[in-house]
């Protein structure tokens, strides 16, 4: 308990210290100091996280109490942190991948001026701080604080190059779409407070509190929580912000928009799995939205030509898989995929960053090609990432994706078929990306060709480490049918319960696995054979154009939601505000001025008039004071006497 309090304090406060150090001193420190400090704080946090993880493995979950955040007669919200199997895993991923990305950023952002360099790192540290609060919080309110914090940092970092107006729009779009989801999360929190008077996991997520909630309550709360997850984790219909968020620096995309923040929704649902398991409707909604997102984003990714856009849609698609896993009850599978995805997607983004760096900020893959020999380390690590995401055994993506697919098959074979189609598309677009970028002939300008160079060690070292992790991370979840132990699902039993019995025979599982893997391998070979020679030019077919323009969803939102809202706002501004409200205010003033001009003529200096009005006034007073009847009664009373 005592050790944990110090340890958690260290984990959380190091990034905060880094934020304050770089944020306040951004005009004073040299770039070297900034880079060392920012990275060092996160590495320190990582080391503390390792200790926390070991502690949890030995002693079990621990809750540490710091102070009471809100303390009223009816609601008590303590500022508590919970370190258990789930949050300690996330701690390792966040600080581990975070450290590597900080290290990478020190080289990637080298061209920035020192104050901006410091600003960048302070945002990045603040992000890690918020993310740690999010996963460590012991109740939904503390989680929400972190939830908003990461949203803010995402906004700040997407709009990091704030002189570019489009980037600012992208930042605003991300922020606003997240806010829509956050509203759902907030409402769910309020609902919990009203019904249970508590938001602590230890009180909400118990059989006792479930008995206090009607099934409508559970469905409502879980759906609202899912709306929050939708915004943060970029699911239909709130996914369009994530591809635009690629406006930020590439390491930011790797850290926030691939490895950590976007998985917050999965973390939240896994954390509240007890509630979600009790609502059939919500689970179906999650599974359907998850698989549709996975497919939709995969189709878009096939036709994109911006290296980061492909990866962004791939992220959306992979998040869809995770939600499919959550929807079919494979919580540990979803967490497994979060972890492997964090490795290989961070790797892919950083690899893309290395390519962009080498190509002097060229992001169009049609102008690349043949980079294999020029960027050997980047090429090799990127290839490992592609193989991992395509689901080729024995790389990590295979194990996690297959666990989700097996659970999906147990729920409904349709999910499985769609999932395998999505996996085939994933393999196809990833190897389209790989082939166009690294194989074939160089297609950029000769000036670019002369300057192409492998990135410095600070950038390649994270790539190598992440490549190793991407290749081997599957080891934490080797299924029992392969003679493994599935360490991860055993480790998560305190949080998500015993793994569900799928009821599938081993031979069936082997078959499913073989089918999905062989389809993925066929797809990737197909992609290599197509794109080895040529690249995608502007698409000609209707379907190609449709996919290239991202299903026209942005336009649809623009026409369907943004424009009507704008028109409504215009109506409020021009008609209601200018005519009705201003009219009422100005009208009152004019009326008073006009009547004053008329009434003041009464004051004409003739004493006689004054007296006359005085008499009228007195008579009027009498009539009000004693109205007619009472005057009559007065006289009647006198008469009787």
């Amino acid at each position, binding site marked *: 308990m005592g050790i944990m309090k110090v340890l958690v304090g260290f984990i959380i406060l190091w990034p905060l210290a880094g934020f304050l150090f770089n944020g306040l001193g951004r005009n004073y420190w040299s770039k070297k100091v900034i880079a060392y400090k920012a990275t060092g704080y996160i590495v320190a946090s990582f080391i503390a996280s390792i200790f926390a993880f070991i502690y949890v493995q030995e002693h079990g979950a621990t809750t540490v109490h710091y102070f009471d955040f809100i303390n009223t007669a009816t609601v008590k919200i303590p500022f508590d942190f919970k370190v258990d199997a789930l949050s300690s895993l996330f701690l390792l991923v966040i600080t581990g991948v975070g450290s590597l990305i900080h290290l990478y950023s020190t080289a990637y952002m080298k061209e920035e001026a020192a104050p901006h360099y410091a600003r960048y790192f302070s945002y990045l540290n603040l992000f890690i701080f918020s993310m740690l609060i999010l996963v460590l919080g012991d109740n939904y309110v503390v989680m929400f604080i972190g939830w908003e914090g990461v949203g803010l940092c995402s906004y700040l970092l997407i709009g990091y190059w704030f002189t570019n107006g489009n980037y600012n729009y992208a930042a605003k779009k991300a922020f606003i779409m997240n806010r829509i989801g956050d509203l759902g999360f907030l409402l769910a929190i309020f609902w919990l407070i009203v019904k249970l008077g508590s938001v602590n996991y230890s009180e909400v997520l118990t059989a006792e509190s479930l008995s206090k909630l009607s099934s409508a309550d559970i469905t409502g709360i879980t759906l609202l929580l899912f709306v929050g997850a939708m915004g943060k984790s970029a699911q239909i219909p709130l996914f369009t912000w994530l591809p635009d968020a690629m406006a930020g620096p590439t390491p930011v995309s790797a850290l926030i928009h691939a490895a950590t923040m976007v998985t917050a929704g999965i973390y939240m649902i896994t954390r509240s799995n007890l509630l979600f398991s009790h609502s059939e409707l919500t689970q179906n909604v999650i599974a359907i939205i998850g698989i549709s997102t996975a497919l939709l984003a995969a189709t878009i990714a096939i036709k994109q030509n911006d290296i980061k856009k492909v990866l962004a849609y791939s992220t959306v698609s992979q998040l869809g898989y995770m939600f499919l896993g959550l929807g079919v009850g494979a919580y540990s599978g979803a967490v497994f995929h979060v972890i492997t995805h964090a490795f290989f997607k961070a790797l892919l983004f950083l690899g893309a960053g290395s390519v962009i760096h080498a190509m002097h900020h060229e992001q169009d893959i049609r102008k690349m090609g043949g980079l294999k020999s020029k960027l050997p380390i980047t090429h090799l690590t990127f290839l490992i990432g592609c193989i991992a995401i395509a689901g080729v055994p024995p790389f990590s993506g295979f194990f996690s994706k297959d666990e989700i697919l097996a659970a999906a098959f147990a729920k409904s074979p349709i999910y499985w078929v769609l999932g395998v189609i999505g996996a085939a598309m994933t393999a196809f677009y990833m190897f389209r990306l790989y082939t166009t970028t690294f194989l074939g002939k160089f297609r950029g300008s000769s000036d670019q060709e002369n300057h192409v160079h492998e990135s410095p060690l600070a950038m390649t070292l994270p790539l190598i480490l992440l490549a190793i992790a991407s290749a081997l991370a599957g080891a934490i979840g080797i299924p029992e049918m392969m003679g493994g132990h599935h360490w991860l699902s055993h480790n998560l039993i305190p949080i998500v319960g015993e793994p569900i019995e799928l009821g599938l025979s081993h031979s069936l599982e082997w078959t499913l696995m073989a089918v999905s893997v062989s389809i993925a391998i066929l797809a990737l070979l197909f992609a290599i054979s197509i794109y080895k020679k040529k690249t995608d030019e502007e698409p000609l077919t209707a379907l190609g154009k449709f996919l290239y323009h991202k299903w026209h969803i942005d336009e649809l939102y623009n026409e369907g939601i943004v424009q009507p809202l704008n028109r409504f706002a215009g109506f409020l501004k021009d008609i209601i505000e200018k005519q009705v409200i201003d009219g009422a205010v100005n009208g009152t003033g004019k009326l008073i001025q006009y009547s004053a001009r008329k009434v003041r003529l009464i004051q*004409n*200096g*003739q*004493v*006689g008039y004054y*007296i*006359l009005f005085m*008499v009228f006034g007195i008579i009027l007073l009498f009539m009000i004071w004693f109205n007619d009847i009472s005057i009559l009664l007065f*006289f009647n009373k*006198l*008469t009787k*006497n």
Partner: protein
Amino acid sequence: MPIQYYIYFCLALFSIGVVGVLTRRNAIIVFMCIELMLNAVNLLLVAFSKMYNGIALQNGASVTAGIDAQIFVFFIMVVAAAEVSIGLAIIVMMYRNTHSIDINFLNRLKN
């Protein structure tokens, strides 16, 4: 005599005073009308005093019941007299300055 006779009479007297003040321009006549109103009130005070005194005597109260209203009448008379002396003095000064006692003439003081 029933009290309402007094009331109607005083009402009439008071109204004549009011109308006089409102309509006449001669300052002295306005003054007289003010006196008329004061005296209407005086008369009413005396009448009510008398009526109240009569009722009180029937109920066995002391003879002095209700006579404080008559004391008020004297006060009013004194005040009226003082007012008249000041008022007439003003009128005299006004006449010396303007050779007129038309009250509307005085609105030239405005501005």
